[in-house]
């Protein structure tokens, strides 16, 4: 059943995703063509302005591609699970965790695809497919090993999943109330955000408390604390995974025991 849910979820979302990719491709091509034209006519004032504008437009569309998927996923969850369309979804013979997982996997896959498409659009605009290695080289020269970069990417990947889970949980809590559902969702978000901040502060405090001497030495030496990267990122990753699991467990509970489609 999860495969069927995913099939219909991708079917319902591919239109605006593909629409955004087409728009991004077009603006990247325009930026490329204008850049080539500017290279051929370096002193052309009109070309300088239009090329700059096209590059700015390409940047805006790239940001939009990354943001819209996230926003649409949240809005779609609200509409498809907690409002009128929920009458359809909650009467399907599927388990609640399958509904939730389908809503997590789909935007996640689109986000990964977004990153690849945005990367390709930048590569197209600058006419260099290997821009990633340049970025990696920059990071390496800043003292980050490839293992640390992988760790960073992994932490970001888990963090994205945790963010979706947190937003879904806030909506599930808000919509289990008898009135002011959107307001209560927002209040839930503020409360959970504050709890997260407290956990983050406690985490940092524990790390600093156990390594106070070492950190003092690093501060005096004014060097990048590379040796503590693994500790900080590792603990952030573990906490993110734990929070993600907790959010989703509560969400499944809410959908099973506190569903309230009035």
């Amino acid at each position, binding site marked *: 059943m999860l495969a069927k849910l995913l099939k219909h979820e991708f079917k*319902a979302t591919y239109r605006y995703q593909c629409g955004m990719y087409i728009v991004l491709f077009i603006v990247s091509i325009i930026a490329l063509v204008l850049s080539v034209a500017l290279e051929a006519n370096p002193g052309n004032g009109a070309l300088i302005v239009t090329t700059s504008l096209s590059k700015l437009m390409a940047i805006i569309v790239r940001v939009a591609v990354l943001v819209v998927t996230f926003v649409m996923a949240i809005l779609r969850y609200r509409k498809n699970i907690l409002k*009128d369309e929920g009458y359809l979804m909650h*009467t399907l013979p599927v388990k609640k965790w399958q509904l939730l997982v389908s809503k997590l996997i789909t935007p996640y896959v689109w986000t990964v695809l977004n990153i690849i498409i945005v990367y390709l659009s930048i590569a197209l605009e600058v006419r260099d497919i290997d821009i990633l290695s340049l970025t990696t080289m920059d990071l390496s020269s800043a003292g980050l090993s490839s293992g640390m970069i992988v760790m960073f990417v992994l932490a970001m990947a888990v963090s994205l999943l945790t963010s979706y889970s947190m937003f879904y949980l806030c909506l599930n809590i808000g919509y289990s109330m008898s009135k002011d559902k959107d307001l209560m969702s927002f209040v839930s978000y503020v409360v959970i955000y504050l709890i997260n901040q407290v956990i983050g502060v406690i985490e940092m405090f524990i790390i600093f408390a156990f390594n106070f001497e070492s950190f003092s030495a690093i501060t005096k030496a004014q060097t990048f604390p590379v040796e503590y990267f693994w500790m900080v990122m590792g603990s952030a990753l573990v906490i993110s995974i734990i929070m993600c699991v907790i959010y989703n467990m509560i969400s499944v509970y809410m959908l099973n025991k506190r569903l309230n*489609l009035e």
Partner: protein
Amino acid sequence: MSVIVECKDLTVKYGKKVALNNFSVEFEEGRIVGLLGPNGSGKTTFIKTLSGLITKSAGNVTIAGEKLGTATKSIVSYLPERPYFPSSMRVKDMIDFFNDFYTDFNPQTAYEMLETLKISPKDKIKALSKGTREKVQLVLVMSRSAKLYLLDEPMGGVDPAARDFILKTILTNYSKDACVIISTHLIQDVEQVLDEVAFIKEGRLAMFKSADEIREENGKSIDGLFRAVFAC
């Protein structure tokens, strides 16, 4: 006839408001039951609870001997009182959707009914009028061979001619060993097809009798009795 819906001391609360209060009833298979009551009496809450859209506060409910859950959803065909299909989808997409999730769904039946209604499967849901959307929803719901049909105001938004079609659709398509529960205000329109009638008042079962009993004992139509019982 075996019991398909068994409901004992069911209580549903919205915050402090009690929508269903120790509601107990049993419905048998092979019956068409009219669930009748004034606005806010708890009809929709009862149907939503059986559909799994609302969590009960107390009591026990079983459908075909199973507690409410995934198993009961596979044998319950539910028609809500509002449009609930995603508006961006086409009618054909919804048929594919039902076909994917319900093993008892017959797409051929759905296409035949749509043809009778002159509704194109290629039409987008959002392009349909409210009445046509309701017909499409009913077509899909009645194209299942379910054990229990829960129809909440199936004729609420359609014209009198379409009501006849809807009644005919219900009568000709439901499995004969299934139970059909119809919640409606349009009692005169459904009266002729009802086997049993359950009156709900302020979240409690006020009366549950066969349609024939009501007519014989009271010398009134169901509509007449409803007006007498719930007179303001």
